């Protein structure tokens, strides 16, 4: 799966947790979940669970810790999909 496709599928997952709509509208690979999108840190675990369901993968703690922005998240998903 290409990074672009993953990013497109990631957007609706992240959307309900976003508190800064403007930065979400200008989403880029560098968008940070907490700093830019102002997502409550507790909700990061919900995003991880939603990502697991969407891509049918299992994300362990060490991968979860990397998922702070769009780029790193796409990379984690891509690696896990490749291992399937």
């Amino acid at each position: 799966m290409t990074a672009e496709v993953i990013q497109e599928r990631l957007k609706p997952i992240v959307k309900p947790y976003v508190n800064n709509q403007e930065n979400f509208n200008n989403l880029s690979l560098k968008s940070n979940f907490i700093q830019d999108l102002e997502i409550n840190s507790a909700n990061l675990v919900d995003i991880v669970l939603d990502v697991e369901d969407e891509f049918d993968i299992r994300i362990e703690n060490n991968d979860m810790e990397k998922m702070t922005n769009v780029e790193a998240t796409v990379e984690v998903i891509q690696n896990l999909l490749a291992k399937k």
Partner: protein
Amino acid sequence: MDKKRVVITGMGVVAPNATGLSHFEKAIKQGKSGIQFHQELHDLKFSCQIGGVPKIPQELLDKNFTALEQRGLLATGLIYGGIAGQEAWRDAKLGVNEELDTDSGIIFGTGVLGVEKLREAFNRIDDKQVRRLGSTSVLQTMASGISAFLGGKLGCGNQVTSNSSACSTGTEALLMGFERIQYGKAKRMLVGSCSDAGPYVWGGFDALRILPHQFNDTPELASQPMSATAAGFVPSSGAGALVLESLESALERGANIYAEVLGGHVNSGGQRENGSMTAPNSTAVQSCITQALLDAGVNSEEIDLINGHLTATAMDSTEIKNWSQALNLSGKDFPYINSLKSHVGHALAAAGSIELVSSVLELKRGFIFPNINCERIHPEILKLVDEDKIPRQLLEMKVNVLAKASFGFGDVNTCVILKSYDNE
């Protein structure tokens, strides 16, 4: 130090017979029952298959919970309390500031919160799926989840906590908030309580065999406080909320004043004498009432109406005896007395606050709601109280001073004295 006068400037309610203040006022005037048969209780082989569960339209949920907050939301007590608390705040015309409001606090109690959510969590944990609990498991199942939720919604920066004293929780919350304002530690306190609905809350009471099992086909007739045929309390749920405010703060912002809180008292019977985990020590109940009158500076003859605890068990006549002895009044001199539990059942931790909302409406609008399901009053009660003092029809009349008491498991008691406010 001069104690501050404290008034009620906003209310909200989620009850089995009506949700929202105006519907609730209409329902209690009509004596509308909120008790229904529940198939789920039948399927689970409960002996009592009836109960009170508020109806929450999606529109009301959307008004009080964001789409995100509604995800995985199973804690019914949090839903009821979240709605009632925010309704009370809006009713008091208090806005939601972006800045921290250090003058406003919350004391919003419960017995146990989010049992449905707990059940989901237990199942996931036992399935070795703890990692899939999600982020809201803690908020929905901690006892203070309700005050924490409301505190965040409203931006309250004063004390934000949840009290818990079984069926006296709601009345105790009012007294705690009242004292905080009296002593100048807060200007406004949102007080109230909530209780979850359903088999996981009610099961323990069904096991104690203290719920009526004879009315599964006639649920509306089941809750019979003060009746000769009272067969046990009907389990129920919901939430009530009141905004307490110092009189100066209320006058300063031109707020609508419903009533004044004159005083009250809280104590415990220590499970001594005739008291136990489940039965009240009468000495302590009477002392709670007399101390409340003393604190309020009111003579017993001044009380127009009692909103009793009166759950529809054999203890109802004991309660009446305690009121009669504490007030030293009987027969035609005994105040009017009613029990909202005849309409909505026993909402456990939420009972006190829902009943307080009904009491304040009576003071503000000038009426006494009817006791339903009480065609034949218990003979022990008739020995102490004249029949006319237990109205079975709506009475439209001025109520000046009202006493409200709640008693709970653990032999705990609360009594508060409220007065109508006439711009004096």
